[in-house]
C-alpha cells in the first residue's frame, strides 16, 4: 500500500541521495512578546529521519513545529527549510513550502462545509490540480487511513480519531518530503493512537522525514521498538536529546 503513489514529483533535489538537511535551526530563539519561550535551539533534521519532540504542556512544542513550517519566524537565529532562510521567504514561497511539508495540526483544522474527502483533497485543489484525476490515489489514501466509508461525512460529524487520521491523509496527499505531526494522538484512545503511529512509521519507511510532537511517553516507547527514532525534549526553553531516561 502506497499512500503517495502518483502524487507529486518524487525526485525532488533533496529526495535524491543528496542528504541535504531538510530542516535546520541555528541558535533559534522565539518569543510571543513576553519573555523568551525558546532559546538557542540548534538542530538539523536529515532526510528520512524520525524524531519525537516531547516536553510538558506549554513547553513550546507547537511553537517549535510552527517555526519548522514557517508559520512563525524566529525572533533570533536562523531557520533554514530545504536550504532557504525562512526569513527571506515571501508568502508565495511559504505557500509552496506547505506542499513539501505536510502538517498534522494539533486541532486538525478542516473546512466544516466540505465533506471529508474534499478536505483531504484540499492541498491538491489549492495547488490547482484536477482532483478528478487523482481520485484513485485519493481513495487509496482514505483506505490506508481506514476512512473509506466516512468519505462523505462532514468534519463536525467525525470522531477525534477519525479527524486525526483524516488530517494525516491530508498531510501526505501532496507526497511531501517532511511530515510534522502535532499531538496526533492527543484526544484519541490507545488503540487508535497505535494505529496512527503505524501509519507514521510506514511513511518513514517510505523515506519521509517525520517529526511528532507529543507529551505521550508511552507512544514514544512503543515507537522505539519499531523504528530508529531520536527523542528531543524541550526543557527550560532549550532543546535536549533525551536518552534512556524515558
Amino acid at each position: 500500500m502506497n499512500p503517495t503513489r502518483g502524487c507529486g514529483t518524487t525526485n525532488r533535489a533533496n529526495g535524491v541521495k543528496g542528504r541535504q538537511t531538510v530542516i535546520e535551526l541555528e541558535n533559534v530563539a522565539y518569543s510571543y512578546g513576553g519573555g523568551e519561550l525558546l532559546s538557542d535551539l540548534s538542530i538539523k533534521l536529515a532526510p528520512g529521519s524520525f524524531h519525537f519532540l516531547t516536553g510538558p504542556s506549554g513547553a513550546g512544542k507547537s511553537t517549535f513545529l510552527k517555526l519548522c513550517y514557517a508559520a512563525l519566524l524566529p525572533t533570533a537565529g536562523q531557520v533554514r527549510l530545504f536550504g532557504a532562510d525562512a526569513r527571506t521567504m515571501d508568502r508565495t514561497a511559504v505557500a509552496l513550502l506547505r506542499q513539501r511539508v505536510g502538517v498534522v495540526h494539533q486541532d486538525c483544522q478542516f473546512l466544516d462545509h466540505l465533506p471529508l474527502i474534499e478536505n483531504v483533497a484540499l492541498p491538491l485543489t489549492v495547488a490547482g490540480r484536477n482532483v478528478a484525476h487523482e481520485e484513485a490515489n485519493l481513495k487509496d489514501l482514505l483506505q490506508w487511513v481506514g476512512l473509506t466509508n466516512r468519505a462523505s461525512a462532514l468534519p463536525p460529524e467525525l470522531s477525534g480519531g477519525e479527524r486525526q487520521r483524516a488530517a494525516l491523509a491530508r498531510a501526505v496527499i501532496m507526497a511531501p518530503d517532511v511530515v510534522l505531526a502535532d499531538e496526533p494522538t492527543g484526544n484519541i484512545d490507545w488503540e487508535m493512537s497505535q494505529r496512527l503511529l503505524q501509519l507514521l512509521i510506514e511513511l518513514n519507511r517510505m523515506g519521509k522525514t517525520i517529526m511528532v510532537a507529543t507529551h505521550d511517553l508511552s507512544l514514544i516507547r512503543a515507537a522505539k521498538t519499531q523504528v530508529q527514532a531520536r527523542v528531543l525534549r524541550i526543557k527550560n526553553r532549550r532543546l535536549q536529546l533525551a536518552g534512556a531516561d524515558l
Partner: protein
Amino acid sequence: MTDLSGLIQSDAAADRVVPPAGFTVQLTLFSAGAMAFLAVFALALSLAAGRLAVHWGTELARSSTLRISAHAEQMDTQVAAALRVLETTPGVESARALDTTEQQALLEPWFGPGLPIDMLPVPRLIEILETGAGYDAPGLRLRLQGEVPGAVLDDHTRYRRPLVSAAAHLRVLGWLSILLISGTLAAMVTLAANAALAANSQVIGVLRLVGATDAYIARAFVRRFTLRAITGAAVGMMLGLAGIWLLPEGDTANDLLTGFALTGWHWGLPVLIPPLAGATAFLATRAAAARVLRGLA
C-alpha cells in the same frame, strides 16, 4: 495572479473552498442592481440633456431675423440702411435680405402658391447669422430705432441661451452621477468583501495551512463578488431600461421630460453597465482581499 482569464474559467472546486455565500454576497447583488438601475437613468439624463444642448445650440447659431415694414417706395432704402447697420454690428457674422422667392416660400403655407408678393405690403426679412459670441441685442435695437425706424428685431431663439447652458450643465451632472454611482458601488463591494473576508478568517487560515497562495484565496472571493455584481447589474439595467421604455413617447429633440427616452444606438449604451459594474467589483474586491490577506499574515 488574480487575472480576468482565471476569473472567467469556471473552477467549481476552487469556488467550493469558500463557504456558500452569506448575506455579503446578497448585499453585493442588491447594491449592483440598484446602482445599475440608477445608472441607466443617469445615462439617459446625460444623453437627453446632451441631445437638447446640441439641438438648441444649432438652432441658436442659425439665425435671428430683422423684419422691416415700410412703404413700398422706402422699402429698399430701409433694407439697405438696416444692412449697413448690421455690417458694422459686432457679433453679426453676416446679414442677407431674403429675396422674393424665399419670402414667397415662407408665406406659402398660409396664402397658397403664386402670391403676388410685390403687390402686397408684406414686410421684408433680413436673415442674421451670428458669430459664436452673439451680438448685443438691446444695443442693436437702439441703433436700429435711430436709423431704420421700421425694423423689428426678432431674436426669438435667444431665450434658449440659458436653456442650452442648463442642458449642458445637466449633461455634466448626469455623467458625474454615473461616476458617483460607480464609486458608491465600489464602496459597497469593498465593505461587503471586507465583511466576507473577516467572516472567513478561519477558512483562510486552513487554506493557508494546506498551501494556498494569497492569489488563490483572493481569486475565490474576487470571482464570487465580480459574478454577483455582474448579475445584479444586469437585472438592475433591465429594470431601468424597462422603466425608460415605458415612458410615454415624446419629443426627444426638444423636451427633457418627454424626451428622456433613449434614441437609436443609445439604447445599446446601458449594456456596458454590467461589465463596468463587474470591473468595479473586481478591482474593489481584489484590493480588499490584498489588504486583508496582508493583514492576516
